[in-house]
């Protein structure tokens, strides 16, 4: 197997950005010298503001670290919202999803989801619904989204119809599905709010944040879930929960406090970041891996420099997607493109040959990896390619073309 030449995989982990790498390296060096000293603890709380210039030049990758609050500000800015509003930082995004399920079923009887959701999250939601004796209703939008002529209005209308017919009062939507279909989540929320009260809204933005449409300035959802290890390119897994809507901010904090106190929500990083922000650091908390905080700060700093206007990078990715799709068509692959309104920077291809379609997902992934291309593969001859946020280099597109032809 040869080293990767084209990394087109963000389904699980994106690549590590340059600044995240620098932060990681310098953090490792600092940890080697300081361990968990008081100097290190002060650095953790306040960043390197008071450092002499010699020390700064020894650890340039940590220059971006100013403490937890500035990290949250940066993340909030990337989500298109007021930097003053709160953000939850957790080790495991699944923990945050469990919390979201608890929040949803506090006031809601029946939560509407689409068939584009990430199955493990849907399972968490359904488990919670079973526990408290409530309902989860699914609306099938995938067939609509996959029709090339479908407009946004039709999807919004289909969701609204199901919402009304099923007597739903809660909503859990995936902004961008793992297969790359984007939903107009804000439009859907507004349309539903116009016809009946929406008691609680959670958006799964794991594939949306720093990629497609994450824009929370209009406060359309109560909780927005994201991660910094996919499109943000922080690499080390870390979950993020954005909230702050007028109607639910204190409610979320009240329930969070209750679940942390009762031990039902047990995330060491969440406890640690909350304590360090409130200057109430206790010695009895679990020892936490802090590396993701620094790599996330590095990645966020780079993203803020690079993504001054997120829609621009999405348009660039979509241009790359158009080129890759036309190349694939000529190489024995069928692009599974949704209607234009639902496209993102993720391209789904299906092999044309039956023999290739019969390959297992694992064998397919290995076949591409053996030719220097990292991507995500699914059963049925499907592969998922995440488009880069800069234009294809001629050599890259040539390489992709030849590999697609070989594997097809």
């Amino acid at each position: 197997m040869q080293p990767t030449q084209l990394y087109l995989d963000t389904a699980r982990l994106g690549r590590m950005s340059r600044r995240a790498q620098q932060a990681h390296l310098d953090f490792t060096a600092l940890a080697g010298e300081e361990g968990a000293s008081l100097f290190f603890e002060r650095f953790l709380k306040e960043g390197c503001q008071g450092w002499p210039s010699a020390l700064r030049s020894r650890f340039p990758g940590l220059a971006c670290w100013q403490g937890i609050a500035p990290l949250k500000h940066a993340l909030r800015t990337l989500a298109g919202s007021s930097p003053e509003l709160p953000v939850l930082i957790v080790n495991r995004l699944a923990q945050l999803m469990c919390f979201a399920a608890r929040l949803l079923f506090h006031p809601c009887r029946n939560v509407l989801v689409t068939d584009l959701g990430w199955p493990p999250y849907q399972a968490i939601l359904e488990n919670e619904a079973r526990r408290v004796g409530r309902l989860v209703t699914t609306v099938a939008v995938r067939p609509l989204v996959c029709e090339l002529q479908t407009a946004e209005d039709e999807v919004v209308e289909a969701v609204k119809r199901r919402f009304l017919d099923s007597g739903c009062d809660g909503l859990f939507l995936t902004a961008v599905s793992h297969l790359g279909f984007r939903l107009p989540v804000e439009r859907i929320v507004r349309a539903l709010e116009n016809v009946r009260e929406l008691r609680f809204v959670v958006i799964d933005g794991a594939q949306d944040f720093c990629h497609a449409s994450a824009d929370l300035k209009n406060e359309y959802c109560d909780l927005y879930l994201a991660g910094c290890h996919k499109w943000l390119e922080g690499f080390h897994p870390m979950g993020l929960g954005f909230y702050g809507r007028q109607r639910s901010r204190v409610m979320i904090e009240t329930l969070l406090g209750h679940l942390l106190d009762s031990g039902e929500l047990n995330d060491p990083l969440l406890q640690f970041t909350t304590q360090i922000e409130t200057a109430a650091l206790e010695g009895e908390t679990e020892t936490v891996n802090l590396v993701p905080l620094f790599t996330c700060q590095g990645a966020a700093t780079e993203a803020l420099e690079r993504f001054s206007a997120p829609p621009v990078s999405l348009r660039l990715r979509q241009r790359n997607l158009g080129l890759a799709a036309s190349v694939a068509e000529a190489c024995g692959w069928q692009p599974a493109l949704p209607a234009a309104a639902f496209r993102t920077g993720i391209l789904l291809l299906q092999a044309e040959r039956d023999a290739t379609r019969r390959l297992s997902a694992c064998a397919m992934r290995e076949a591409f990896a053996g030719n220097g291309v990292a991507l995500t593969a699914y059963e049925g001859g499907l592969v998922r390619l995440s488009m880069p946020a800069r234009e294809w280099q001629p050599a890259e597109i040539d390489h992709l073309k030849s590999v697609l032809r070989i594997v097809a």
Partner: protein
Amino acid sequence: MSREERQARRSILLSYRFVGTAAVGSLVMALVALFAPLPTQLAMLGAFISILGGLFLSYLGQEDQRERQRAEAIQSLSVPLSLARDPELFQQYQDIARGLTALAKNADPILRRIALIKFASVTAQIDGLADGRIVFALTEEWRTVYEQILSSPDVRQYRSVAWVKTVDYWQDEPGRQSMRVNFEAAHRGVLVERIVLLRDELWPAGQLLPSPEILPWIEQQHNHGLWLALIRESDLSREADLLVDMGIYGDRAVGIQELDERCRTLRFTLDVNLQAVRLADARWQRLLLYAKSFRSLLDQRSPTG
């Protein structure tokens, strides 16, 4: 086999009563046949047969009376027999029966008269309980039952209508404790929905949110995840029957609280029957037509509050 049992199984033809009576009667009839003329013999025979018939009919009458008494005795035993399947209720029955028996031995007429009045009231209460209705008057004791129902694992939904006439509503210690039970239930997964009926002075017309005196109480519930909706009392001026303080516990029971002007409990009636739940549900649906969700009001609030 005991001696009595052996006697009971022996043929009546061998009993002394039969043999003695038959022997005496036969001897008398033999003497009459020997020494008396034929008409006398016939008269004698007729008298014997009439006496025998009379005795037989009297016996049947007594037997009928005995049968009736036996049936009544068995019927009175059927109450403890059917209660015996429920040890807790049977214990109560026995305690009451023991008390009544002890009372029956006391011949004081004044005590007896007072006891009968008291028992009439207790009987009315027991009849109410049998119909699924429990009434608590002039006491906060109902909150114990209320808390037990909310803690019951099979109650997964609690809908409540709070008729707030003053800022004192549920602000005393029992009220705050009940509110804590609400919060615990919500955190456990019970869906708690509350419609708050507010006097106009507590939510003046034209104001987005209720007055600061009552707002924290409403916000606290909202922050614990309860779903809340508000109605101004004046909006229900044409639907006076909707002005009520009630709770619907799943689909099992309905509680109606009556308060005085200072928000102290006058009476709390708990109805554990499906018909009462249906009626309360219909009231709830009508109230929803007037209700404004507290969440939607918060959405309209400016960010500075």
